[in-house]
Every structure is written in structure tokens, then in C-alpha cells.
């Protein structure tokens, strides 16, 4: 039953990406151009003295930010949108449970964004001829451990949208806060390590740029922080959902 539902969700995600072909394409192009801009623009601005490490760091930072932003929007924006149409109510009528569906949605969306981001990254490396030494397995592992924290934030805003409907501007604002989360230092353990996504993002940076490796407990730390924010967000979302159910706002426009 769960598998069938998951397959259905995955299919829907991919069909939607196909149908919004123009949007999908412009998103990809935009990421691509930002990469190109970072490669060439920075070189131009800072001259030949720019050190390689700094540049790699920027690229990784940007790609992590793209992951975070798409994960965040995947959750909050979709929930916000669907609460203004009637589909959210239909999802609540499915016996596997609304929250399971949302979870499946996140996983599907995440798989899709891996495909997007990684292909754009390789495309950029191909065009510029500058190859990052990317340990892809480790990279994806850490992103996967850290990304639930972003979904947690998405939940909070999705919940707000359920009750207050029009919240687009605050949705946008968070994008910039995510830049902060992606770029702050976190290793070795310090205060900022406890921010959502920061530990994961910083570790990836260190790993790719400086070839650093981490003890196993650090991976668990990333996951722990990540799950903390995920469940915090989920809890807050549930509170808003209860309120929406009481005020009859699940499918009202």
C-alpha cells in the first residue's frame, strides 16, 4: 500500500516537472548561469590571484543553497498552494495519512532536485573545464542527513499558510536567511553548528574544498540536529493543522 502510494507520488512529481516544462527549464538555466557567473565573474573581478579554494567554496555554497531552497519551497509553497485549492482536503481523506503523503512528496521532490542540481553542476564543470573533485557519495550522504532540517522550516511556513493563506512575501524572505545557514561555519563544534542545515553545509564545504574527513559521531550530530528541526517543524505544522481543521480552513480560499 505504501509502496504504491509512493510510486504514485513520484510519478506525479515527475509529470508535474514535465508539464511545467518552461518553469523547470528556466530554473535549470538560472542555476547554470549563476554557476557560470561565479566561475567567470569572480575571476574577472578579483583577477588571477583568486585562490582556487575560495572559488570552489562558493560553488559548493551555491549548490547547497539551491538544494535548501528547493527543499524549502517544495514543502511550504506546495502546502500553501494546495490549501487554497481543494486538493489538500482530498489528501486528508487518504487512509495512509496526510503526513505520510507529505513525506513521500518530500522524498520525491528531493530525488528530483538531486537530478537537477547534479546535472547542472556537471554541465558547468563541462563548460568551464574546471573540475571539482566531488566525492559524490559522501556529498549526497551529508546533504541527505542535513536536508530534513530545511523541510522542518518548510513545515512551519506551510502551517502558517494553512491558516493565514497569503504569506508569499515571508516565504521569499526565508530564502535569504537560508544563505546565512549555508555559509556560517560549524566545524569544529560551535554555537552556529546548531543552526538548521549549517553543520551539513559546512562539512560538505570542508570535505570538497579541503579534503577534510569527519569522525562518525559528527555524521550523527548532523542527522540529530536535522531531525530535531524536522520534528519541531512537523509539530508546529500539526498545531496549525488542528487550528485549520477547527476553523474550517483546510480547503477554503
Amino acid at each position, binding site marked *: *500500500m*505504501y509502496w*504504491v*502510494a509512493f*510510486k*504514485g*507520488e513520484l*510519478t*506525479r512529481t515527475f*509529470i*508535474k516537472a514535465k*508539464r*511545467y516544462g518552461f518553469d523547470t527549464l528556466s530554473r535549470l538555466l538560472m542555476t547554470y548561469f549563476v554557476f557560470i557567473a561565479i566561475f567567470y565573474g569572480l575571476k574577472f573581478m578579483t583577477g588571477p590571484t583568486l585562490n582556487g579554494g575560495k572559488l570552489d567554496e562558493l560553488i559548493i555554497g551555491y549548490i547547497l543553497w539551491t538544494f535548501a531552497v528547493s527543499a524549502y519551497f517544495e514543502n511550504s509553497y506546495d502546502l500553501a498552494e494546495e490549501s487554497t*485549492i*481543494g*486538493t489538500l*482536503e*482530498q*489528501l*486528508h*481523506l*487518504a*487512509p*495512509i*495519512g496526510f503526513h505520510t*503523503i507529505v513525506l513521500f512528496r518530500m522524498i520525491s521532490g528531493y530525488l528530483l532536485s538531486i537530478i537537477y542540481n547534479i546535472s547542472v553542476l556537471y554541465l558547468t564543470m563541462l563548460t568551464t573545464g574546471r573540475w571539482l573533485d566531488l566525492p559524490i557519495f559522501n556529498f549526497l550522504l551529508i546533504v541527505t542527513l542535513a536536508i530534513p532540517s530545511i523541510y522542518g522550516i518548510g513545515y512551519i511556513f506551510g502551517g502558517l499558510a494553512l491558516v493565514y493563506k497569503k504569506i508569499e512575501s515571508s516565504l521569499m524572505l526565508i530564502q535569504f536567511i537560508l544563505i546565512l545557514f549555508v555559509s556560517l561555519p560549524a566545524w569544529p563544534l560551535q554555537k552556529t553548528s546548531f543552526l538548521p542545515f549549517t553543520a551539513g553545509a559546512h562539512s560538505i564545504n570542508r570535505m570538497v574544498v579541503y579534503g577534510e574527513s569527519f569522525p562518525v559521531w559528527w555524521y550523527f550530530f548532523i542527522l540529530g540536529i536535522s531531525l530535531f528541526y524536522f520534528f519541531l517543524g512537523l509539530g508546529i505544522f500539526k498545531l496549525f493543522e*488542528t487550528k485549520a*481543521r*477547527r*476553523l*474550517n480552513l*483546510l*480547503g477554503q480560499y
Partner: protein
Amino acid sequence: MQSHLKNNCQVIVSFLLSRPYYKRPLMKEILEVKHIFKSYPTKSEPFKALDDISFSACEGEVLGLLGPNGSGKTTIIKSIASLLEYDKGQVLINGFDNIKDRKKVLPFLGAVLDGNRNIYWRLSVLENIHYFAGLRGIDKKRSKEKINQILKDLMLEEIKNKEVRLLSRGMKQKVSIACSLVHAPNLLLLDEPTLGLDIEISRGMEKWITKYSKEEKKCIIVTSHDMDFIETVCDRVIIIQKGKITFQGPVKEIKKKYHNHKRVRITLDRQINESFKTSLKEICDLSFETVEETSAFSFKMENLNSLPLIMDSIKNHNIKLQDIHTSEDRFEDIFMEIIKD
């Protein structure tokens, strides 16, 4: 002789069926709504949207919820589907509490609220059906036959690969219904299924609802402002006003209870004047509906007993009768009468 016998049998059977204690065991109760209350907070005192609503519904039955705008029909439907939280009371579906045993209830339940917005506009008809089937753990390959049957029943076959956003409102409405049918729910809730549909699609919907409830023994609850539709499809109706049930019973019974007026429209060869009208009023207590500029006038009366007298009066005035048309009160008129008082 034979037809006489058959007639007799029919009379006996219908007599037996009309008796409540024979009727009850025949149909299984699927829905039981017990003393539901719901209010919304407002700045002053809370607004009572539902005020002690109780009713039940059986398999094979189509139950209509009627009432003016804002009377609480959608609120009732959503409470049954547990899409909103009611303050007090209980809803049992197939014997299970719809809040405490939600997981057990949902497989029996289908609901279409605001039909054309219940589905993903960017997916095609078939993709939508497959998606919602998938959410219920129904594999699209194994349920192919069933899905084809649904498409056929709702006349969606030709457009099954079209993107929903490209379809008309009526089509979208039908797609929504198709999506909530894949798991063959015992209890189907339809909130305004005929809203914005043309006559043809509306008639098709009527046929389909009757077929689905009677042949597959499903219970359907519909709301609508289209009284002809309600009269055609519903076995029983509930009238709701300001969150309270003010009437419930079979459509036939309502018609009987709220004395059926005859509506008579008479067309004469010349215009009627006041004196003629007064003389008509002397004959019996007519309530004139319209006295038009033309030579036609119509009025309501309880029976046709005094019609000959009117004819006489027309004759006495040397006026020629051109046309006479009688009709019964429509369900719509009766409904208006009920909600008036």
C-alpha cells in the same frame, strides 16, 4: 385477469414496503450523525453554524441536503468527512467513529467538495485518477478494468488523456467524482455536484447517481440548489436552515404534507379588466400570481373544484377562452414555502 392479479400484488407489496418495520431491516444503515454542534468564533458571540444536527442514511439511499446559502450544508458534509472539527456530537460511518477510528472509516468514504478544484489541473484525467488511486494503495495496473468502467460511466473516456486545466467546469466536476470512486466508497458525499453544469451533463449526473446508489447499493449524500435535480435523484431530503434541521422526509411526503396547489394559467381573447378580476375573486378565494398586461393570467388554487364557475363567469362576460394550462406546484415552490415560515 392476470393484470388485475399483478396490480393487487403490487399494492400489497408496496403496502408492506411502506411500513417502517419492514423497510428498516432491508437496508443497512451506513451513516449516523448524532447531535452535531459547530460554531465559529466571531468578535462578539460565537456563530452557530450547526445546531444539534442528527440524521442517518442507509445503503442504496440518496439523501439530499437542502437549504439557503450559508445554512450549513457544506459544514455538515465536511463534519462527516472529518475535514473540520465539530464541537460536540458523534458521526458513525459503518459503525465506526469518524474521529477516533478515522483510519477505519476513510476506506469507506469518498467526498467531492467544490468539485472542479479537488484535482490537479496540471495532470491529465487518467493521471489524476491513478494518483488518487495510488494514495489509497490501489495499483493502477490491477484496477485497470474498474477505472475503465468509471470512465465509461461518467462519459470521460474520450478525454481521459487531456490535461484537466483544459477541460470545462462540468468535465472537471466529473473527473473529481471519478477520482473519489476508485476505492468504491460505501458512502459518497457530493457537495453541489451540479453547480455550473449544463442540462445535458446534469441529466447524465442524475442518471449516474441513481444507478450508482441503486445498483451498487451505495449511500450518496448530495447538496444542491437545483430543486429539479434534488427531486429526481433523492429518496429523502433534509432541509437545513440556520444550522438546524427544519424538515426531513421523502420527497413524496413533503409534496403531500405541504398541500399541493394547482397552478392554472388562462389565456383569453382580450385583456382582463379590474371588474372582471373582482368578479373572479368573488367566486372563490383565488390568489393571483400574475395579472399580465396581456390577456393571460395565472393563479393558484387548492383544487380544481371552482374552475367550472370561473369558466361560467368568462362565458357570462362574453369572453372567449383561448388556452388553459394547469400544473402542479413544483418542488421548488414547496421548498420556498417551507423555508418561508
